[in-house]
């Protein structure tokens, strides 16, 4: 079933919307959630929560790309879940992702001093646009889709260490951009 037709089902409050979404994007959202959380039970729960979130949000939302819209919902739910259960140190994938991104964050900056969320998102988008195609692909693959470093290294045909280095260079470049944009260190 085409995305537009599935979205129509949501708009009509037809519960088939969820069945069709699960059939078409269950695998995709599971992969996103699993990359972030690494725990099958939580993955399943997050994916189910994703369908519920979509049901509550469409309408009025009219996602132009249903798959990426669902992927975003999954990421948002995953980070909430992570925040909730952080003390238990359960989510290895998310933990390592956030730990890597910690490098990017200017240390000691209070939320008040930081860029507002929207400005930060725009700044990040501009930085991603400025990257060479392969670097852009690498960044999104690692930090949006949560693909493990090991797998990225295998795909690129380089060692895991070399891949870690490439990712580290990327993060430094992002940090430099954030500083340039006025984030105080």
């Amino acid at each position, binding site marked *: 079933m085409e995305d*537009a037709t599935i979205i129509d089902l949501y708009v009509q409050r037809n519960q088939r919307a969820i069945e069709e979404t699960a059939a078409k994007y269950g695998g995709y959202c599971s992969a996103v959630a699993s990359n972030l959380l690494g725990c099958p039970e939580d993955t399943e729960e997050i994916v189910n929560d994703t369908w519920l979130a979509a049901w509550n949000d469409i309408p009025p939302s009219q996602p132009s*790309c249903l798959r*990426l819209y669902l992927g975003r919902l999954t990421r948002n739910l995953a980070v909430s879940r992570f925040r909730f259960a952080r003390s238990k140190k359960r989510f290895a994938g998310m933990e390592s992702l*956030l730990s890597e991104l910690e490098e990017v964050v200017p240390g000691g900056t209070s939320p008040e001093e930081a860029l507002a969320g929207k400005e930060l998102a725009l700044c990040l988008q501009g930085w991603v646009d400025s990257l060479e195609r392969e670097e*852009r692909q690498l960044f999104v693959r690692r930090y949006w*889709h949560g693909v493990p470093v090991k797998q990225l290294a295998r795909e690129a045909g380089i060692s895991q260490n070399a891949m870690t280095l490439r990712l580290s260079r990327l993060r430094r470049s992002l940090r430099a951009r954030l500083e340039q944009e006025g984030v105080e260190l």
Partner: protein
Amino acid sequence: MKSEDIFNAVTELRDDQVRAGERKLHRTRTPNFRRIGALAAVLAVVILAGVAAGPWLRAALRRSPAQTEAVPHDTGAQLANTTTEPAKSSNGGAADTNAFSLGRADYPKMAPYPRDDPWHENEAAWEAWWKCYKETHPDTDYSLGINDYLRTAVPTLLSDTGEDNRVVSPLNIYMALAMLAETTAGESREELLTLLNVPDLESLRVQAKALWEANYCDDGRLTELLANSLWLRDRTVYNDETVQTLAGGYYASVYSGPMGDEAYNETLRAWMNEQTGNLLEDQIRDIGMSSDTVAALVSTIYYKASWVSSFSRVEEALTFHGPDGDTNPAFLRRVTEDSTLYSGEGFQAAGAKLDGSGQMFFLLPDEGVRPEQLLADASALNFLLSDSGRSSTDSRQVELTLTVPEFDVSSKLDLIGMLQELGVRAIFDPDRADFSPLTTDVEEPITVSKAQHGARLVVDEDGVLGAAYTIIEMTEGACEPQEPERAELTLDRPFLFVVTNNEGLPVFIGIVNDPKP
């Protein structure tokens, strides 16, 4: 700032940026065949479409119906002598569409589509909208004979385009012919029922009402307004039952006045302009009833819908290869993943979803194939006319770069020759025509002296705006049967289009040949 803030900002990356990370990393730098393939797809689809609209048309499309000078269906006015907002008349003056009115049709009032309210925060608004939508769109089957009608009528309606554009609304013509059938008897009625593919008048009434209800929508998301009217002569006595049937079963407003009188004609034009949102003023300007007109039936449709996935203007200059040479209209483009690309015999096609409605399908004939040739082929015709035809066409899911020119097409058709070609002849012949269900209070036999259809469709980055009318005029006295005029011209890369409702029924269909610089 926390790393979570960065994580959240990453979540907000744009769709195109996220898509970039969907492909596996390359081991070595190699030529990007995928990109080359995408470019080929762009080039293929560029030729898919046809004409350009001037900036004023884009402005017209962006203007909401509420901002147009004549808003179709002033739903506040139901009866004669109530005040309505004056419509802009075809000669620039103000005309009161309540003048000469015996009764204005009562159109359904729909709850607004609560576009900006999250469902979980304003459940009541959504429930109200959905309840109203279901009430105004009862799930009545209208499929009886409709496919055969379309299959028979559409090739004729789209024939002999020459170098011109053509746009017609098969739905609008159906409603006008259904009303005409109500006013006829004997052979005249039989021929109309045969064309409409229904066994009897009762079935036609059920069918026409179901079609009307399935398509009428005015909830702020989709504006699809159908309207009918009956124009009577004040000195003639009519069969009240027939007039009531048209008013009740076909939502027809009824007027009575002195035929040939300029004020009466002015009201007719004002009503037509009002119902078509002034989109067809140029054509309606010339319409008027003469002193020997016994009655006129008018059916209109106004349609406005937005794309679900919007298009963007293409910045670089692209060329449209039209029959009159190359031109450079403004082009629109969008990239959608999970799009269906159809491949039929002699054509490729793709659709673009319209919010609250069906889709607009663009059908590009293969190089060297003319649209009219395609219409002679069952595969293309099936594709254009029904969802089942489309689902039986070979297709594959692709990421589609769809590039179409902005266009504005309109055409005016004399339907008499086409109706005769389609087997409707008796109503034009004074010796055979039977309009006794309408009136017997005439001195000369009644025949149909005018059957005219006008339509216009504008496509731009925001969506689709269209309008159509059909006017059928019945007069006393003989009418010379007309032979359909025929012409054949070799075209370069024109294309066909169809705008469908939710069930795939063509609301507008046409051929684009003539890009406008």
